[in-house]
Each structure stands twice: as structure tokens, then as C-alpha cells.
């Protein structure tokens, strides 16, 4: 106890995003509700327990928040419900052990604001996730929801376009095309019907920004689309959500139903005489369907393959009609821009990248989760302040941004400001906002190989550069990681990669060589170590790795022996241990568990 008392609790918010749900957060909600009901509390205010969308710090879920004090508990288990109820709800006491501990501090912090994970964040697209019950339209409206749509429908479409243009918002799906310009192009075409699409086919490994918005704040997307439809003159919209996002589909279905009930969707929206309705299309889980033209082909019922985009989809998109497609996060930003003005939005961020961006910060970083930060924040701030640094105090090696076709950014560029242009200048890209942090136990050849393998399976295979290029680059990388590589291989990879960047049919193919090209650029020595010394410095490529225990450092604690699945480690307690190379499978468990840096990569 640090002496704080908790003010009478009015609301208890329990995070019920996918990660927390997987850790039984729904049991916490029902447990708390039951307790409160049974007890018939003699309190002035009976606390309301709400199941909310994702609150961001997924690593430490389930998260329970108490309002108005903003007291936050992390990693709460259903078994803790009794104690939480008795101490915190009934007797206004804090439970020290459930509160957040800052990595470098002894004492625990009480509120979300004090938690360094949240301190530097600015939540615009995520303004409601984790705050509202996504299944309740009333909750959304209580926080000002649908006021933007209502006022937008009274505005001239021209005024909306001007506001969006003024905001400087750029598409959050990856390419960063100015949203206002896209809207104006679509509005300027006089062919009807026009269609509005929300791209929710998020498929990057390790990325879950859009899922959390769809799950936690579905109405902001609906409202954004409603505003967009009015601005360009469309009466029907599609939400393309991948089928694997079961919770997102359910939340969205319910949100659409409630919005129709309120008269915010359907015929005569807001009593203005204007019609707009939405329907959900479930994607079959092909990564390439996140590409806009492939997505439209998929909605039409055709094979999800891209087409050449020399004629833009604002002109000829879905069913050959003018179509306005934006990403989930882009749509979620729109209501806030209408409410607070484009000027306000453009005051945030850098010169050419305005506003904020949601990143899913994952990998070898302490605070895994979803963060929304102003554009222009440095990678160092993101990874070391918000992310809390590298797990196990290992050395930072690289951060992979922009999904599978992004690039790996090395330590030397940690002070780079994160925005569309600077990431591109560093041979990576913003992408949809995946950010995978890697430590010194990550092999860059292996990383490039992983992404190429993913892309070679997920490419549609339509055009030669992408299909055949990926296949051959993967073969070359396989060779390098098995010690069969030559220095000419690097030239070959660069030659094929740079051809693909320009000659491939769609964005997927054009960006597919990025992981290889950026790792060759920044980690050439590591490639050369694989090729010349036949050695994998990170100890990942199995054919090029041996592990050895340093006798002088080994304390004989036996931890490695215990964790060795191949029973390759022998040694008596308190005496130096030895690895039998014949038996060793190079899994790396020993080096990962050793606390004395006694395992060396040979």
C-alpha cells in the first residue's frame, strides 16, 4: 500500500479486445457484475462494469480501469475478482501488486497517465477504443459520436472536402496518398452510382491496428464513411473485413444494426432525405486482397488479383464505377477532423505528414501493444520510452516497419523522425503501421528470408517479376543461410529486386524486395559473414551456427541443461557445463536462458 485511497468508483472498464478476451477478461466482467449485484452495495454510486475494446497495452492484459480515479490494474485474472471487489470496489483500497511497475522504477504507478506507455501517446483514431462499450451506440454518442456526421450533412460537400484537404490527412493504409485529394477526385467525377469502401483486410504479420479500431470503436468508422459518402455523393458502402477477424465482424454487424435503428444509416439519414447504407463483405484471408484493386475484384466475386492502376479507382473502381476506398484508421480520423477542424489536425505532426499514426509495437520490446503517437516522434522515443526498451536488456538491432514489404531500420537511424517521407528515405515505408523490434538474437538474412517466404505464398502470382522474382530471391537467400552463398548472389538479389520495384504490377510486388534490399544495405556485413566466414553472427541459421559454453563464465547453474530439449548439455552443479555439438539442434534455448552470458555463438 502506498497510502492512496480510491475515490468512489463510478465506472469499471474491463478491456475485452481479442488479446484480453483470450486471457479470460470476459470472466472478469461477469464476475465483477455478479459481485456488485449480489452485494447490494451501500454506496452512493453503484459502479457500472463495461466491457471495452482494446486499451493498447496488450502485453499486460487483461486491463481493468477504475473511473473517475483512472486507477489501472494489469494482468488481472478471474481469480483476482474477489480481492478486487473486496478491497478496491467495497473498501476503496488499492491493490499494489496489480498496478503497473515502470521498468526502471521501484514503486508502482497508479494511473494510466503515469504509465510511460501512455504518456507520449496522443489518441485521435483510438480516441474511443478502451473507453466505450463497442456494442453500445449510446456509449459512442455520449462521447460526442455522430455529432460530426450530423453537422457534416448540413454542410456543403465542398466545405467537407476543403476541411479534409486542410487537415493534410494522408491515407493510413500504407501508400500515404493525400486523402483530401482522393476525395476531391472522386467527388469531381459525375458518374453514378459511386461506392465507398473501407479496407479492413489487415494482413501484415504482427499488425492489429485496424482490428482494434473495428473491435473497439466501430461507430467512428461508420461515421467517417457516412461523412465521406456525403462529400463525394455515394449512397452505398462496403466494409471489407477479413474473415479471421471474427470479433470485428460481430462488432461491426451490431454497430450497423444499431446505426440503422437510430436512423444514421439507411433511407433518409438524420432526416435529411439523403440515403446511405453499408454492408459487410468478409474477405477470405488473402493478403493481396488488401491491395485496393484486388479488394474490389474480391467484392465483385472475382479472384482477388490486382489490375494495373493507370486508371485510378476513384474513376473506375468497384463494378467499373467511381469508388472511394480508405483504410479503417483513415475513416476513424474523419469525424474528429470535422468536429475539431482541419486546421487543428494539421497542427499535429510534421510538415508533410499530419496528425497521428497508430503503430502496433511488437517483437522484442517490453511493452507490446498498440500506440498512437503524433507523426514526427523518433523511433528511439517509440521503442525505448513508450516501448520500455528491449526485453532482457539485450542490444537493439533493427526495427522492421511497414509490414512484410517494409524495410529494416538499423540502430544508427534510431533518432529518425517517423513520418511517411523519412521512412521511405530510409528504404522502408509507413505501411499500415506494423513495427517489429528486433534484438541481437535476430539474424537479418533469416528475417529477409521470413518475409520473402510470406510474400511468395501471399503474392497472387499474376505477374512475372513478383512471382518468379520472389521465388528466385528466396532460393538465393536459402542458399546463403545454408552457407552456399557467394558474393555475386548479393548483386543478383539487388539486380532482381530493383527490377521488381519498378516492373511489378501492383504495390505488393513493387515493395516485395524491400526486406531484402534494406537488409543488404544496412547489414551487408552480416550477409558477408554468412557468405565468407560461413557463420551466422546471431546464431539463428542452423547450418552456420555452433554454440559453446565459456568455462570461465559458466557458474554451473544448470539452467541451460534444464532447457535443452536435445539433452546435449552435460555438467555437474557449480562446474562449467559442456555442449555436445553432435546432439545440439541449434535451437538457441541455452543462450536465451543463460544469465551470465556464458554461451557463445561459434
Amino acid at each position, binding site marked *: 500500500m502506498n497510502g492512496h485511497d480510491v475515490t468512489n468508483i463510478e465506472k469499471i472498464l474491463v478491456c475485452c479486445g481479442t488479446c484480453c478476451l483470450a486471457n479470460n477478461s470476459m470472466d472478469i466482467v461477469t464476475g465483477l457484475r455478479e459481485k456488485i449485484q449480489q452485494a447490494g452495495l451501500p454506496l452512493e454510486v453503484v459502479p457500472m462494469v463495461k466491457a471495452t475494446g482494446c486499451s493498447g497495452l496488450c502485453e499486460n492484459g487483461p486491463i481493468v480501469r477504475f473511473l473517475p480515479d483512472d486507477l489501472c490494474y494489469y494482468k488481472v485474472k478471474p481469480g483476482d475478482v474477489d480481492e478486487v471487489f473486496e478491497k478496491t470496489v467495497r473498501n476503496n483500497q488499492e491493490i499494489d501488486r496489480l498496478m503497473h511497475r515502470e521498468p526502471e522504477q521501484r514503486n508502482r504507478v497508479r494511473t494510466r497517465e503515469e504509465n510511460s506507455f501512455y504518456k507520449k501517446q496522443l489518441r485521435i483514431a483510438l480516441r474511443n477504443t478502451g473507453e466505450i462499450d463497442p456494442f453500445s451506440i449510446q456509449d459512442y454518442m455520449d462521447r460526442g459520436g455522430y455529432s460530426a456526421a450530423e453537422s457534416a450533412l448540413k454542410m456543403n460537400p465542398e466545405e467537407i472536402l476543403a476541411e479534409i484537404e486542410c487537415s493534410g490527412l494522408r491515407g493510413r493504409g500504407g501508400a500515404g496518398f493525400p486523402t483530401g485529394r482522393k476525395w476531391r477526385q472522386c467527388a469531381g467525377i459525375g458518374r453514378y452510382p459511386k461506392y465507398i469502401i473501407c479496407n479492413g483486410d489487415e494482413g501484415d504479420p504482427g499488425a492489429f491496428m485496424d482490428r482494434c479500431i473495428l473491435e473497439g470503436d466501430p461507430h467512428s468508422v461508420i461515421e467517417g464513411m457516412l461523412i465521406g459518402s456525403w462529400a463525394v455523393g455515394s449512397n452505398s458502402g462496403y466494409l471489407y473485413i477479413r474473415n479471421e477477424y471474427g470479433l470485428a465482424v460481430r462488432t461491426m454487424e451490431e454497430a450497423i444494426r444499431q446505426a440503422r435503428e437510430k436512423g444514421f444509416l439507411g433511407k433518409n439519414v438524420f432526416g435529411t432525405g439523403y440515403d446511405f447504407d453499408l454492408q459487410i463483405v468478409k474477405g477470405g484471408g*488473402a493478403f*493481396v486482397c488488401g491491395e485496393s484493386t484486388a479488394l474490389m475484384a474480391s467484392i465483385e466475386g472475382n*479472384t482477388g488479383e490486382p*489490375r*494495373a492502376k*493507370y*486508371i485510378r479507382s476513384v474513376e473506375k473502381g468497384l463494378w467499373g464505377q467511381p469508388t472511394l476506398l480508405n483504410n479503417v484508421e483513415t475513416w476513424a480520423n474523419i469525424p474528429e477532423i470535422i468536429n475539431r477542424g482541419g486546421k487543428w489536425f494539421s497542427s499535429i505532426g510534421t510538415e508533410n505528414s499530419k496528425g497521428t499514426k497508430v503503430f502496433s509495437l511488437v517483437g522484442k520490446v517490453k511493452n507490446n501493444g498498440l500506440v498512437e503517437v503524433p507523426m514526427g516522434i523518433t523511433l528511439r522515443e517509440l521503442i525505448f520510452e513508450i516501448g520500455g526498451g528491449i526485453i532482457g536488456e539485450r542490444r537493439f538491432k533493427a526495427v522492421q516497419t511497414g509490414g512484410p514489404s517494409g524495410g529494416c531500420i538499423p540502430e544508427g537511424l534510431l533518432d529518425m523522425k517517423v513520418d511517411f517521407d523519412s521512412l521511405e528515405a530510409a528504404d522502408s515505408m509507413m505501411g499500415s503501421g506494423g513495427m517489429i523490434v528486433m534484438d541481437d538474437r535476430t539474424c537479418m538474412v533469416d528475417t529477409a528470408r521470413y518475409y520473402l517466404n510470406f*510474400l*511468395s*505464398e*501471399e*503474392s*497472387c*502470382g*499474376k*505477374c*512475372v*517479376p513478383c*512471382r*518468379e*522474382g*520472389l*521465388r*528466385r530471391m*528466396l*532460393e538465393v537467400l536459402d*542458399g546463403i543461410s545454408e552457407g552456399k552463398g557467394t558474393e555475386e548472389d548479393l548483386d543478383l538479389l539487388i*539486380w*532482381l529486386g530493383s*527490377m521488381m520495384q*519498378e*516492373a*511489378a*504490377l501492383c504495390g505488393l510486388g513493387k515493395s516485395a524486395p524491400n526486406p531484402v534490399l534494406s537488409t543488404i544495405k544496412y547489414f551487408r556485413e552480416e550477409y558477408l559473414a554468412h557468405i565468407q566466414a560461413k557463420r551466422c553472427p546471431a546464431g539463428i541459421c542452423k547450418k552456420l551456427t555452433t554454440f559453446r559454453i565459456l568455462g570461465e563464465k559458466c557458474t554451473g547453474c544448470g539452467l541451460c541443461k534444464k532447457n535443452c530439449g536435445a539433452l546435449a548439455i552435460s555438467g555437474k552443479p557449480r562446474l562449467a557445463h559442456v555442449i555436445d555439438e553432435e546432439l545440439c539442434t541449434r535451437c538457441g534455448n541455452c543462450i536465451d536462458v543463460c544469465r551470465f552470458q556464458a554461451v557463445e555463438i561459434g
Partner: protein
Amino acid sequence: MKVIIDGLACEAESGEYLLQIAKRNHINIPTLCHEEALAGLATCRICIVEVMDAKRTEVEGDGQTERSEKRKIVTACVYPVVTEIEVITNSEKLRDMRKAILTLLMARAPESDAIGMLAKEYGVEHNHQWLTKDDEKCILCGLCVAACDKMGTGAIATINRGITRKVSTPFEEPAESCIGCCSCASVCPSGAIPFTDLHRKRTIWNKEFDLVSCSWCGEIIGTKEQLDYVGKRIDPSPDEHRIGLSADAHGNEMLCEHCRAVREASRLKWVRQKSLA
């Protein structure tokens, strides 16, 4: 409007594709997946060219550097011309990129003559390090699938995705909807679709068809299924009323194109003589 291709000023209509304009002006751009009747696949990427916006460079004016930066690589077969542009079809860079593409195609389908000829032209050698299927000729351009779709039969499609993509019938079994017309094989640029016409039988895509010959000269006209199918498309009336192309509901003879022309000519002659008499 004017389009300058390799220094030659060409007349073009707005919306016309670059490849069309180039062909009309006898400028050679190599293609593999292009077929007049089935245009727009843009899968082989061999027809890449460099495009610069002629107008924009004029307005911005100052100097050559600006000009070269604005260059972009596009595929001529599907690039519609809407503004006045300058096009280069054979620069050093383009040749190098085509060489890279051909290296990949050569590794995939070393047996194909069409690839072999282009590869020779671009000085591409077969990379023996790369694993190839020995008898592979298919470059997955998609022309066969487009042709089958255009026929309205839809018996073949590309299946799988990424590096495992291939052309196949449904479940790799003989396709019910296949009529054995061989449209797929005839548009294939690399001769990758095998079929045999033996003993009045055609075998293609693991399915056997009866061949129909011309009643006069004996030339093969097509398969029975194909003639039935075409007959139904031309005249959708019930079977017994249809002017048959194959089964001869009206006792018509089955003739090849040449013999049919001869027959029509002689009929005309007969009618003419009658009317004169």
C-alpha cells in the same frame, strides 16, 4: 494528340493504349502475354517502357535533371494515353530490366521457343543454379484462361497463388465444361498446352473428344462438343429446330470453312442461272 515514341511523333487518340500506337507506327515493343482479342492482361511485363510527361517538363522548364526524374516505368499494353507524353521503348535501363525478367522466365520455362528467342536477343543465359521443372513451358501469362473465359466455357482457371500458381481444370480433373476447342492451346505464346489429334479423337486437359470432319474434303472442323456449343450460342432455339452445325438435324452436310464457301458459291450460281432462265 501527339505522342513522341523514340523520337517519332505519332498521332494518337485519347485513351488509346501505348502498344497500339507503337504498333501502328511500326515501333517494335516485345510482348508475350499480349493478344489483340484478349488485351489487358499485363502479366509478362516485357512491354515495359519509360514515360515522361511532355507537357509537365515544358512548363517546369528548367533543365534536363527535372526531366529525367519524372520518368516512370509503365507497361505499354495497358497504359492509356491521356496527355501528351514522350515515350522511350529501348533505353539501357529498359533492356536491363527486360533482361532480368527474361532471366526469370528462362529459368521457369527453358523449353519454350518464344522465351528462347527473346532471351537470345537480350543475351540472357540460363542460370543453372536455379531449380526448374525440365518440361515446363508455361509462363503463366493467363492468355489461355482469358481465351476460355471469352469462349464462355470457363473450363480452366489459374489455381493457387504466389509461387505455386498454375493453370488447371477444376480439381485437376477432366472439366465438364471443356469443349475441346483448343482456343487455349492456340493462343498460348509458349506452346505449353499439349493436345493430340489422333484417330479421329482429340485429347486435351485429360479429356477425350470425337473429332468431326468435313463431309466433302475430310478436313477436321472441330470436336462434336465444340460444334454443338457454338451452334447453341448462335441459335438458342430448342435442339430439334436448330440449324445444326454438327448433328445435322436438317440433314445438312458438315463442311469446313473452305468447302462451305464453295457450296455457297455454287448455290448462288444456281440461283442466278434459274433467275436468268
